[in-house]
């Protein structure tokens, strides 16, 4: 039993108290402190998982699953939690009211810190994400996903403009459609097996029980998760949501919010569903992922606005994780483990690099007063650090070394080639080409001579350094050895034995 797991869920909520009771400035600082505590807690969890070599568990109220609700942190969950906590903390720092915000003249363009509502949402996200990574029964996961959506939707429409509101409404309704389908799947599972605990269900389903009802339940749950993750062709809400959201909101939306449903999709098919089913479902996800990489990559190339370009790039990049499903579900031990590591590393490095890119794009747009690509010539002179953060984050998307994206790409490629999936290898390479196209297009424009006079403003340096730090984080992930990471295998396959007393 480890109380850290409960703390990870409750601590962010405690941060809400000062925000609601004290003034915005004090509350903001307290919220940032709590986000830092959240990083410490998740780092502590990851450290203990690594030290002990086994998963941490906690039975809420002392009732062990399947009767009670259990929390459990294995290597995969711990890695995701730590990544999410770091992104939230950095985004929070980016969004705070900091030095110079009150006096600088670009304030009129919205460079000041975000309103305290933003920090309320950030803390709620932290809570919901930790719950989604730790919860072990399907219904608690449903609640976590809903919490996540409720915290993410207002992020899209913080300024309350018409376009933002309608984007938020579309996002909410589509996510709700997805979650009802997910819930229907949960209901069917409960009707079949009388339990919702993943570890127990995995044991029950391993013998092929459930027949077509179980298949339908898994399909409904997966479709619901795909809708929430904006996986092609269900990405309708993602570009409009990003186009109006403030940069800090876009960063968390792209970097961590859509990662939770993807994480659960992996959970569902790697840990819950029996291997034969996963082998059949894998290609379906991979086809969706491949279509996302190619189609959304091409659409990203055609974008005229920087934020939309990055948004479509997100829609394309989540496809890489889906390419992992058929590779990881094969019975070919080392190569499937390699694909699994590659997919997970891609999740982590994409989160860091995409957060960096959205923040950098926000600063670029703030400096220039717009984010039309055609008018961004020469912005490298006004916002050198932001452009550097964008470019270094882009390294990871292009899959160039040294970056987490490179390591992930090599792993997925190796696994695909070893398993003879030539089409997956081709898609990985084509995706890299497209990413190279849209990232370099922006960098080249930024480095050009300005076509007209540049405005007399400078980027906000300390904010740009935060974006740069995130980009460096994505590069650091690239110093992983090119072999399966044992840490991610800790605690798999799922079981409560030796985790709870």
């Amino acid at each position, binding site marked *: 039993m480890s109380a850290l797991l409960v703390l990870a869920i409750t601590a962010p909520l405690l941060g809400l108290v000062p925000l609601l009771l004290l003034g915005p400035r004090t509350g903001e600082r307290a919220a940032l402190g709590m986000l830092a505590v959240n990083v410490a807690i998740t780092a502590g969890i990851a450290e203990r998982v690594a030290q002990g070599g086994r998963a941490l568990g906690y039975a809420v109220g002392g009732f062990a699953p399947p009767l009670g609700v259990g929390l459990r942190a294995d290597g995969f969950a711990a890695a995701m939690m730590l990544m999410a906590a770091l992104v939230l903390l950095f985004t929070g720092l980016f969004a705070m009211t900091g030095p110079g915000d009150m006096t600088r003249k670009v304030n009129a363009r919205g460079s000041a810190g975000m309103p305290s509502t933003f920090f309320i949402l950030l803390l709620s996200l932290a809570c919901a994400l930790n719950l989604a990574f730790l919860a072990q029964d399907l219904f608690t996961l449903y609640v976590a996903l809903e919490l996540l959506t409720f915290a993410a939707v207002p992020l899209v429409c913080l300024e309350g403009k018409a376009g933002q509101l309608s984007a938020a409404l*579309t996002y909410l309704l589509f996510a709700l459609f997805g979650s009802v389908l997910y819930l229907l799947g949960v209901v069917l599972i409960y009707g079949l097996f009388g339990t919702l605990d993943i570890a127990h269900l995995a044991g029950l389903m391993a013998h092929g029980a459930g027949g*077509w009802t179980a298949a339908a339940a898994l399909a409904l749950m997966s*479709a619901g998760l795909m809708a929430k993750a904006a996986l092609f062709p269900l990405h309708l809400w993602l570009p409009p949501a990003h186009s109006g959201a403030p940069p800090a909101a876009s960063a968390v939306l792209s970097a961590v919010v859509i990662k939770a449903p993807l994480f659960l999709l992996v959970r569902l098919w790697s840990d819950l569903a029996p291997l034969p089913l996963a082998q059949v479902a894998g290609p379906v996800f991979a086809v969706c992922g491949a279509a996302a990489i190619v189609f959304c990559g091409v659409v990203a190339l*055609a974008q005229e606005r920087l934020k939309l370009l990055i948004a479509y790039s997100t829609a394309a990049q989540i496809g890489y994780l889906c390419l992992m499903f058929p590779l990881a579900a094969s019975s070919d031990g080392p190569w499937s483990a390699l694909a699994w590591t590659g997919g997970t590393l891609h999740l982590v490095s994409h989160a860091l690099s995409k957060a960096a890119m959205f923040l950098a794009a926000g600063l670029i747009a703030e400096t220039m007063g717009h984010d039309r690509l055609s008018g961004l010539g020469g912005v490298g002179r006004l916002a050198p650090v932001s452009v550097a953060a964008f470019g270094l984050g882009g390294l990871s998307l*292009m899959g160039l070394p040294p970056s987490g994206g490179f390591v992930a790409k090599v792993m997925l*490629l190796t696994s695909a*080639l070893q398993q003879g999936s030539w089409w997956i290898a081709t898609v990985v*390479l*084509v995706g890299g080409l497209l990413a190279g196209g849209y990232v370099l297009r922006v960098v080249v424009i930024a480095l050009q001579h300005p076509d007209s006079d540049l405005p007399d403003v400078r980027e906000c340096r300390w904010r740009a350094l935060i974006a740069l730090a995130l980009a460096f984080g994505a590069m650091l992930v690239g110093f992983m050895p*090119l072999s399966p990471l044992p840490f991610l295998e800790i605690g798999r396959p799922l079981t409560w034995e030796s985790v709870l007393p």
Partner: protein
Amino acid sequence: MTADTLAPPLDLSALEPAMPILSEALMVVAIALPLALAFAALVPAVRRALPHVLALVPLPALIAALAVPRGLSVLVAPYPFRFTLALDAPGALLLGGASLLWMTAGAYAMAYLRQDPARPAFMVWWLLTMAGSFAVFLVADVASFYLAYALVSFSAYGLAAHDDTPQARRAGSLYLALTVLGEALLIAAFVMLASGATDANPQIRDAVALLPTSPWKTPILVLILLGFILKMGLFPLHVWMPLAHSVAPVPGSAVLSGVVVKAGVIGLLRFLPEGVPLPGWGAVLCGAGLFTAYYGVAVGLTQTHPKRALAYSTVSQMGVVAAVIGAGILNGTAGTFTIAAFYAANHMLLKGAMFLMVGVAMASSPRRALAAAAVAGLLGLSLAGLPLTGGAMAKYAIKLIVPEGMSGVLLTLSAAGSTLLMARYALLVARSGTEGTPPRGLAVPALILAGLALVLPFLLFEAVTGLPAAVAFAPSALQKGLWPVALGLGLAALLAWRAPRVPEVPAGDILNALGFLGTASRAIMGGAVAADAVLRRWPVAAFALLAIAVLLAATLTFAAVPL
């Protein structure tokens, strides 16, 4: 043929006891110094001091090329990264040549760009490209090679696109697009190559040793050849080279043509197995190289700017290098790679000096430009292999690899073409004078490099081929070397007397015939955007959500449930 035992041409045995540590440190510093300075340029004080020391930054690399014992390797980062540096004979030749070119061109660049407000940015790209080029010649493991190759390729964009004119933007974009393509080809090849080895990041040598028995031998070789040929500029992947060279500042062109394209050469040398006959592949590479050698000359002759003529000459010369490598792997001839590297290093110095001379001539009065053209012509004749010049030694060396017969004759004849093109180049240089006297900062480095380029091949010949330098002075050798040059000069005179009116082939030649590709890609993007707008409508997306659920359920039910 003493490729593996090639002794350093400089006798530094007095340093023997301290050698291992010192040598290892030298290899690391050679790469780390320019890289560190590139980042240090963020500090204004460093940025101000940099122009004064830029010419000295390649010094550790030069010393490393001279003094580090061949075959020494350093494990810079231990397992599991296995970031390894090593120096073999081809690497040392190219590293030494590159460091000399970087030094002289660095001094030249600082004088050339004296008035340019964007000089600091140029210096940063310069240092990054330099670090990448040294690293490419030094690294010994697959992942680091990919990193170094990406560094030199992408940084060179900053040199090519420095002037930021519309033409430079177009050339830069094309260069970047092809570079990204090349990276994709190579990563696929490297992953296939490395997955046969036991380590995740094997040494290049170990991985290549497995190549002949790899189940993916054919795809690996196709991808490696395409990827590196792209950088060398073999037909039809040469389109970026004339475009990039004609828009880059003169010193930028010099290192692009001299050093950056050699990243492709070292790539072929590192990733093709030496001493293992690969007949079909060798024939293809040799044929492509020979065709390119003539094609470059033919298009280059129509050019009206000396830099573009030189760019096409580089295309042609890289064709020669490819033909030599191809002939070598055709028969698995030992020692091929060292000789190919020798020829490439010779070209590196000569071409660098020739580009620098163009800049000197452009800053001179017409009369002084004639003097520059005389030096340029001498360099050109050396490149074509005029006996008693350094280039003749390199030509002699490659004849050792390429067998007599069809390919040998074609290769010899290509020297005549080269002479012709070089005559054209010298003529263009002579015409490019404007006014004034060239500043000493331009003339001195250019002349030093020209001198080195003419002399150094004599000193290296014996170490590379194992033959005494005197063999190249034998009457038969002189005669063999003389007639293609004489033929070329005769043709040049003929053309000068009665030149057919041939319109200038625009730089990038076949690229202009590929305009439909641009139209097609715009159409694809437009179609994708339109399709995206449809897919993102609510009823369509909601229906897709339902359809995915049903499809998935049906797949699972029919394919897996009756277990």
